[in-house]
């Protein structure tokens, strides 16, 4: 699709409408597809979709315990979602959130164990937070450095590193510091964060804890970093057009390396939710699935921190809801739905956007952005980048490879 030859200046209202259409409609189409698949599965199992969805909502948002569990799960997913989203903004695909999360949790548990009983709470928490960030950051830095130095595909390296790191952690825990007959470490001596149940009694029993405030702070921090700082601007520029960024004086390799490290740190912080907030120890496999779900969260959240928080709540609801409906349909239905949502978003978003652009052009209205609906603007004002979920080199196509005008 060639870029439109001329782009008449849009009045503000039309631009806002177009923007809203482009950011809301495609995910909506994807969710409808997922809902249809869900209905089919439910009917195959001989249940009524209405009943299942009602049960799903009641078991999650309908009572304090379910809601607490949703918050707990959404907290981890916010961290891994932010980690993946940050990488994608720089054109990098961090599939290692799984092991970065585990490594962060492990580091936090180690520090929590090393500190003596009675360490002042604030100090202990700060130490654990730093440890988690460092633990995830180290694992994230390896693929970043290999990509920057040797051009090694970060996709493959992060996948392979997942297996390596998890096997290594399993070995350390199993061989050296596990509580006998279990797969977890002893409880940490200091640094535990209070659960929500300690403040609001209604949440009793649920795992929700004050780490969710940290997750919100991290989302705010990522937003500020991406859209209000110079390194964040460089990061997005690299994601949209590495060559153009390089030409503009950005050291692309350095940005890649730093971004992967930051991404790993964000994922690592997610480990606090389990280690400091919930169980107070590191356990083999606590991170299972959260890293991959982070990809779904980033994708549905359009790689925007606000979107990531919303998407984290959505997937946490699905995940907890699966347990709530398990009596009616197998909870594995939720795994299927999650995968369908990812495929549908990845497929429908560019497709619907192309259709929108075509429709608008035939109606004689100009479109913001390039031909395939990628408003590839890197405005210093920090506009969001709603285009394809994967800006940058990997998805460069003929029609999106021209750097768009900086209006």
């Amino acid at each position, binding site marked *: 699709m060639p870029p439109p030859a001329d782009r008449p200046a849009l009045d503000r209202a039309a631009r806002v409408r177009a923007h809203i259409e482009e950011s809301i409609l495609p995910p909506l189409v994807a969710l409808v597809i997922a809902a249809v698949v869900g209905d089919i*599965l439910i009917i*195959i*199992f001989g249940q009524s979709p209405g009943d299942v969805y009602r049960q799903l909502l009641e078991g999650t948002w309908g009572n304090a315990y379910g809601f607490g569990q949703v918050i707990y799960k959404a907290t981890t997913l916010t961290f891994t979602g932010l980690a993946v989203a940050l990488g994608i903004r720089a054109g990098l*695909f961090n*599939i290692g959130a799984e092991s970065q999360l585990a490594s962060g949790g492990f580091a936090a548990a180690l520090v929590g164990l090393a500190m003596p009983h009675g360490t002042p709470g604030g100090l202990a928490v700060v130490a654990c937070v730093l440890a988690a960030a460092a633990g995830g950051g180290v694992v994230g830095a390896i693929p970043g450095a*290999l990509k920057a*130095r*040797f051009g*090694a*595909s970060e*996709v*493959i*390296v992060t*996948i*392979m*590193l997942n*297996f*390596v790191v998890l*096997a*290594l952690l*399993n*070995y350390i825990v*199993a*061989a050296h510091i596990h509580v006998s007959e279990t797969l977890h470490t002893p409880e940490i001596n200091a640094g535990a964060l209070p659960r929500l149940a300690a403040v609001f009694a209604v949440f009793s029993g649920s795992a929700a804890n004050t780490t969710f405030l940290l997750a919100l702070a991290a989302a705010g921090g990522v937003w500020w970093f991406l859209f209000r700082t110079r390194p964040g601007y460089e990061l997005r520029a690299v994601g949209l057009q590495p060559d153009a960024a390089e030409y503009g004086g950005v050291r692309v390799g350095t940005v890649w390396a730093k971004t992967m490290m930051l991404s790993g740190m964000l994922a690592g912080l997610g480990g606090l939710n389990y280690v400091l907030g919930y169980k107070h120890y590191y356990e083999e496999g606590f991170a299972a699935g959260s890293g*991959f779900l982070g*990809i*779904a969260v980033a*994708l549905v959240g359009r790689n925007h921190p606000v979107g990531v928080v919303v998407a984290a709540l959505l997937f946490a609801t699905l995940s907890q809801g699966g347990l709530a409906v398990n009596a009616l349909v*197998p909870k*594995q*239905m*939720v*795994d*299927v*739905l*999650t*995968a*369908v949502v*990812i*495929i549908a978003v*990845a*497929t429908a978003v*560019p*497709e619907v956007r192309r259709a929108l652009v075509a429709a608008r052009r035939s109606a004689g209205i100009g479109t913001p952005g390039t031909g395939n609906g990628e408003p590839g603007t890197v405005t210093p004002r920090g506009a969001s980048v709603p285009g*394809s*979920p*994967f800006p940058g080199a*990997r*998805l*460069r*196509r*003929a*029609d999106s490879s021209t750097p768009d005008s900086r209006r």
Partner: protein
Amino acid sequence: MIAFLIQTLRIAVPYLFAAAGGIISERAGIIALTLEGFMLTGAFCAALGSYYSGSALVGIVAGIAGGLLAALLHALATIRYRADQVVVGIAMNLLAVGVTRFFLRLAFDSSSNSPRIPGFGGGQVRSGVLSSLANPLVWLGILSMFAVGWLLYRTPFGLRVRAAGEKPDAALSVGVPVRRVRWLAVAVSGGCAALAGSYLALDQHQFTDGMTAGRGFIALAAVIFGKWDPKRVTIACLLFAAAETMQIRLQSLQLIPSQFVEMIPYVLTIVALAGVVGRAVQPAALGKAVD
């Protein structure tokens, strides 16, 4: 010694199958992250087919059909709709886990495994040389790599596959139907990976939840470590399988923790990707969509 080689071969068969499919897919420009999912789907469908028909051969056919179905979905999303291959690939693996679990509950009312199914060989028992040699899939697995080498370097289709993965634009300009070639390549990879899965299910005489246990990723590691070349990939598969065999045989001695043996394929792959000498360089258009 013979027993060691046979056991290595038994472990290597699924790697050979899946890696053979992975080579074709990656050489055509489609990232083979999905091998794991195709394998799992194939294993489950093979178990279904074998259980309901009572014949292991029908199981193989059903397994291939399942793998093809999954591959077609992947091709539809990534080739027809040009969705990102990595995203869809990851999702396909999640989908395979979810779908097999869902239908495991539906078909066998179990969340862990299927009932015993007709298969090849003596089941769980580490049976002797003969039973392995009687398993047609073992032979087919060895053959698959030769077949891929022949297909890739000795046939027009292979030339087109390599063109589609290296210079799709140039291939298009001389009339190669790049997208159709990629569709076929993904289908072949789905079928091959499904055979790997079928082998697992029929060899163990049942389907268990998540029974592929990362073997698809080890196959992918072998493809990369073997630099996308059938001969080297075969060696990589045998090497990884031999390491596993050693680990199983030396388990009682506790020489090396099993976790370190598990790491070998992955560490070698990372080293190969980052290697200063003889680095693995992927097909130029790997992962890039074609209009």
